[in-house]
């Protein structure tokens, strides 16, 4: 049986969806990375400081705008009862893991929440993964009383982790690794890499406004390579060990629990694959 080709309306909707993802990615990435691409700005010392004062608000507004737009687009999938119930329960479980983390803090950025975000994104798709990442951070902040200005950035970045998890399927399908330890190894490497990248992204939004040694400090007008070199020095000095612990934690959790959790998620994916149909007159479906 062959699938029917998409209609013109469906193609238009797909195109618009892709445009939204593309634009939010470009604006979000540009907002996060603007210290690296902004050309030299000739300003007096007072103007530079004034710019320093208003830029965090501009960046926060842009990142916030991108986040709400992606959330609006992604939540289009959350209109079925199965999707909503499954997501709600998984977010609750992951929030309990965060609760455990707050009660018994691990070393550095060691956290048990990211491996479930990666696995749900990998099994149930990018939209599910985005909502799982963003909402886990939101709900756990509510129940642990840790709502703060960092929360939108955490939600956006954790959402990206879940949204990008299906990329692992490209590797696992290409090399036919599904169902074995090699699949878990791919996911562990992916989780480990995100452990570092998560910290790197979370640093960038405040790095231009933080002070530090001149060789680690952003200045208006420095060339892009110099900006990267300084950020790398800043990152190594302030965050690398912390983030390495997160990466280690993600790899460890994936190695210890990945295969069993993957099996459980896949089993329930099959059990959730049914359609409700309204009953016809006479009571027979």
């Amino acid at each position: 049986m062959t699938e029917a080709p998409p209609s013109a309306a469906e193609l238009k909707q797909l195109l618009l969806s892709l445009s939204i993802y593309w634009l939010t990615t470009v604006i979000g990435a540009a907002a996060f990375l603007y210290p690296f691409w902004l050309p030299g700005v000739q300003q007096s010392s007072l103007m530079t400081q004034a710019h320093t004062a208003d830029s965090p608000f501009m960046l926060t507004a842009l990142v916030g705008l991108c986040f709400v737009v992606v959330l609006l687009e992604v939540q289009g999938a959350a209109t079925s009862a199965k999707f909503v119930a499954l997501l709600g329960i998984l977010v609750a479980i992951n929030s309990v893991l965060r609760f455990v983390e707050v009660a018994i803090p691990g070393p550095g950025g060691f956290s048990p929440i990211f491996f479930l975000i990666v696995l749900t994104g990998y099994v149930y798709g990018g939209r599910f993964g985005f909502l799982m990442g963003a909402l886990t951070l939101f709900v756990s902040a509510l129940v642990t009383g840790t709502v703060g200005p960092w929360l939108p950035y955490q939600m956006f970045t954790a959402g990206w982790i879940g949204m990008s998890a299906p990329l692992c399927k490209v590797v696992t399908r290409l090399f036919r690794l599904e169902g074995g330890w090699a699949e878990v190894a791919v996911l562990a490497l992916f989780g480990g890499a995100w452990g570092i990248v998560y910290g790197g992204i979370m640093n960038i939004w405040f790095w231009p406004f933080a002070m530090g040694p001149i060789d680690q400090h952003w200045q208006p007008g420095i060339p892009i390579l110099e900006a990267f070199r300084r950020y790398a020095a800043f990152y190594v000095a302030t965050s690398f060990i912390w983030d390495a612990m997160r990466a280690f934690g993600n790899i460890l959790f994936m190695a210890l629990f990945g295969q069993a959790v993957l099996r459980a998620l896949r089993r329930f994916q099959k059990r959730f694959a049914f359609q409700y149909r309204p009953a016809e007159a006479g009571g027979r479906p």
Partner: protein
Amino acid sequence: MINSPAWIAWVGAALVALSATRNPFYVGLILLWIALSLAFIPPAADTPPVPFSPLRFAAVVIALSALFNALTVHVGRTVLFRLPAGWLLIGGSVTLEALVYGMLNGLILSGIFAAFTLLNRVLPVRALIRLIPRAFYPVAIVISIAITFVPTTLRRFQQIKEAQAVRGHQTRSLRDWLPLLLPLLVGGLERALKLAEAMTARGFAGAGERAPHDAGTQTAIVAGLALVLAGWLLRLAWQMTAVGGAVLSAGGLVVLVTLWVVGRRVPHTSYRPEKWRKNDWLVLAGALVVIGAFLVPWPGLNRDSIFYYPYPGLTVPGFNALLGGATAGLLGPLALLKGGSAR
């Protein structure tokens, strides 16, 4: 009783003021108003306990920030002592200016943390969920389900732990957590299945698997985002500040209006609507005074003292009485305190 949006405006004002200045006088005043509010405004009955005390947080953050800045920033005229130049990163002169700047950064972080601690204490979780815009109702439902199931999941985790302990299971290492985690996950997924059936039986979008937004909404959002991108590029890359700002604002407005229109289509029933009272106007006015003073370049108001910088030599920061007085706008909730009813 202060309305949730008024509290959000209050915390927003604290955040704006703390992010805008490094002047120790203004920072000190803002911290004083937040500390007084924290000390005297009683917490709401059903708010979660705050994991860290703001005082303990401040002590650790200020000390660490001052130490880190002093050891890694070797700039400033007042040299306290010198470390051997060969020591990676920390080698060089340790200056009073770097120490003071690190302390100021720590104070600002502590102020932001304290302001949000107060928000977490005075706004119950249901009030925070109610703040989610109507356009995001599926997300709000997911959050409601998750928050409802968090206590159940915690209890279930405890039960699984006890059941495994009865069987002789001991949690010595991380590996031993699998017999606890897996039943929790599988039990949760079973519960999700039952919940989905119950929701469908009660008429929650059982038949439709996916109902994306209409093409008009998507087109408006794409147009808004394109304007935001264009305006931002004009403003920052090509220095066309006024035109860029206008285009960027127009784009943002298009997106926000679209969200509002999407939200208007969602049927909404509020069983206990929050009432906006005179007190809320007072808190909002106080917040606007703070935001206006620290962000808007009013004619005749000298804002130079906002931008204090201790390098290269430590100087006594300036103080503008109008700006200092404006910070008292943060005292709104405290001023309305009558026998513990400010929240």
